[in-house]
């Protein structure tokens, strides 16, 4: 297992190098100049040139790349062109917010999907199945920002149960932090439940049709045991792959939810940086998200044999 993990991690190096290369040059292909954005519409050409020199943007792009890559290899992702903050520290501080929302939401969504998907598969073509399938399809059709705004208006503005904007770190007040995170977590949980439920249902239906399940039932095992011990592990494996992919996507991509709920997360940092052409932050964020994606999928692959003993790590 250790050898497999090491091999996968080593394979990630060229992937990340490629990501760094593509990101660095693609970002610079987008029209727009960070100095112009920073100095505004009336800035003089001299001021823009001076800021270019200060940010190192006056050097040839390949020189900029080599210089950035050299520093990135030592763990220094540079400093934000806009705020002057170290990119590494900036990413980690924002990732803390995103990670809490994503991990809790995906865990909850997975739990709901497992229960709903298993019940729907077990009672295929029943009213429960139709209800689960309908709800999952409905959720899939709802844009997350719209759902977020609806929840915000209902629980924040109308019922006054929850705060509507802002964020308090756990270190300052755990209870306030939870209150501020309930709505974004609920929104993301609901948004992600649809696809996971559908996947869980369809794989459970496939497994329920297999001979070994019929055999287990024929042995007289209680239905609960058949479902929990024989159906669930095999049915969950494909869903787990999807959970991994969803985690990777959400770690870098809940900017919409973060914007609606004014959370200072990684997605919002990335969108703001792209709009401001803050090259070091965009590069750092994308590299970080790519590394995270690789890592999450590695963890998923390592967990796979726990659910499906037929899968080996080699």
């Amino acid at each position, binding site marked *: 297992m250790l050898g497999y993990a090491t091999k996968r991690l080593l394979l990630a190096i060229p992937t990340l190098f490629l990501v760094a290369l593509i990101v660095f040059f693609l970002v610079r292909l987008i029209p727009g100049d960070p100095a112009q954005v920073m100095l505004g519409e009336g800035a003089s050409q001299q001021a823009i040139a001076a800021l270019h020199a200060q940010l190192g943007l006056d050097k040839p792009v390949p020189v900029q790349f080599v210089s950035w890559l050299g520093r990135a290899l030592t763990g220094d992702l540079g400093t934000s062109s806009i705020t002057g903050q170290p990119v590494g520290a900036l990413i980690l501080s924002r990732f803390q917010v995103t990670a809490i929302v994503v991990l809790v939401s995906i865990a909850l969504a997975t739990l709901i999907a497992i229960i709903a998907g298993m019940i729907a598969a077990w009672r295929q073509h029943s009213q429960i199945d139709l209800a689960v399938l309908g709800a999952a399809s409905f959720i899939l059709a709802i844009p997350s920002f719209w759902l977020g705004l609806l929840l915000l208006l209902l629980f924040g503005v109308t019922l006054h149960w929850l705060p509507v*904007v802002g964020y308090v770190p756990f270190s300052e007040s755990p209870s306030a932090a939870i209150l501020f995170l309930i709505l974004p977590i609920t929104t993301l949980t609901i948004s992600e439940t649809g696809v996971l439920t559908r996947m869980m249902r369809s794989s459970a239906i496939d497994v329920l049709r297999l001979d070994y399940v019929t055999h287990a039932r024929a042995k007289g095992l209680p239905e609960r045991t058949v479902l929990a011990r024989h159906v669930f592990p095999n049915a969950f494996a494909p869903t787990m792959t999807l959970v991994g992919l969803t985690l990777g996507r959400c770690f870098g991509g809940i900017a919409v939810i973060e914007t609606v709920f004014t959370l200072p997360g990684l997605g919002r940092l990335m969108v*703001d940086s792209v709009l401001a052409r803050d090259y070091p932050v965009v590069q750092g964020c994308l590299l970080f998200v790519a590394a995270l994606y690789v890592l999450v999928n590695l963890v998923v692959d390592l967990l796979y044999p726990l659910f499906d003993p037929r899968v080996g790590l080699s």
Partner: protein
Amino acid sequence: MRKAILALVILLAVTVAWLLPSQREPVVETGTVLRARINADIASSEPGTKRDANTDAVMMHLVEGLVAAREDGTAGPMLASSWTVSPDGRTYRFKLRRGVRFHNGVPLTSADVVWSFHRYLAPGSEWRCKPDLSPGGIAPVVSIKPDGAYGVTIILAHAAPLFLTELARIDCAGTGIIQRQSVGPDGRWRYPVGTGPFRWGSWHHNQYIELLRYKNYRSLPGPPDGNGGGKRALVERVRFMDIPDDAAASAALLRGSVDVLDGLAPEVLANVSGATGIKFTSSPSLDFYCILFQGRDRLLADPRLRRAIALSLDVAALTRVATHGTATPDSSPVPAASPYYGAVERPLVRQNLAEARALARAAGYRGEPIELITSHSPPEMYDDAIIIQAMAREAGINLKIATLDWASQLARYSNGDYQAMVFGFSARLDPSLSFGLLAGDKAQDPRKTWNSPAAIAMLRQSIATADPKARQEIFDRLDQLFRSDAPAVILYNTRRITAMRSTVQGFRSWPAETQRLWNVSLGGKP
């Protein structure tokens, strides 16, 4: 199964433990807090350098200059109690107010003024007004010298009646005088130590900027006037909350999570209007939105085609639809709220489709596509483009819309890389500055759309003229030439709308568009 759950639980526990930041002191909530929305985080804490409108608004609570912009756009006293100008218009002698102290308790003296100016004008400085106060600018500064502890003498290379207006510019943070402790021993910027009614508190990136009441603030006597006049901090703390989404900001206001929602977008006005506990104030702005034309373009080099586009538009109808009736239609670069908006500037260019078609034909235009660049920053600009395209089509003019993000549009504008573009300019306090956005030598500055020697000469004349009557005449002539050359089509000046909780007392919006939270209290009935 159990193993799997156990593994997941351990993984989650380890992650959460890592995520919980180390122990920090809890924030103690004390005193009254006035919460105002900004739609993006500030660009920096350095006055007038890396900046945008949000940054300017925050900075104007912290720093003050020798003079400040008054309600009517002229410059009035601030840290300088009075000044004299030499007969040749080159030497300004300022007398500083006594008893003013910086936020760190250090008394304001002429040495601080000289130090601040030298810092702003130093090589490598990115201060916004530096080019205007440097050789070749509107008011090139030759020297700044202390004249005793409470006097400062500034000598200019030539007479410049706009010098004080330039010093009061909000996008230059009013040339705020800062104390040396604003920078560290290594010369790196720390935070602004100014003389304003609020002092720097904390900056939680992408969350909020908090300013604290400056207890020893020495106010000017009299009523408030623009950024000057009598100013008092009436709340313990001011919190500028970064809420990017308009709908979320409206919800926050309705819920009472923010007290002031300034610069309300026209399309979200309906979200909050009529709600209990919400009141409004508004004022006309000194900004303008327009269509810029690229005079070097093969088609648009001909002023007849540019005029044809201008004549194809019903500016009043466009303004009504795109801004939900909140803005003022305008055909002059002189904004309607300016004291120089007179009989010449007032008439709108009326839609005349027959004449527009005739002019386009005379210019040799045969329906070739013309790219009209726009963006969603602000959203009205996109609506403007759609309406302009439809109206121009009526006159046989074929506009193709290209929608970009703001940074891309800004780059195309700065490089002059466009055929036509819907663009908005933020408030300028003087018509010379408004005309200066358009008129200039294209070879030196590709942003300029009006490369007319006559216009440039008149603009220079307006900058060098002090008498308001004489200036009005110059602006009138400039306006007439502008309408004939049509280097751009002016569309409207926006109206700054502010929604606030009914508990907020004393908030006033003004043509310069920045929110001012001094003299504002939270004393009203909820």
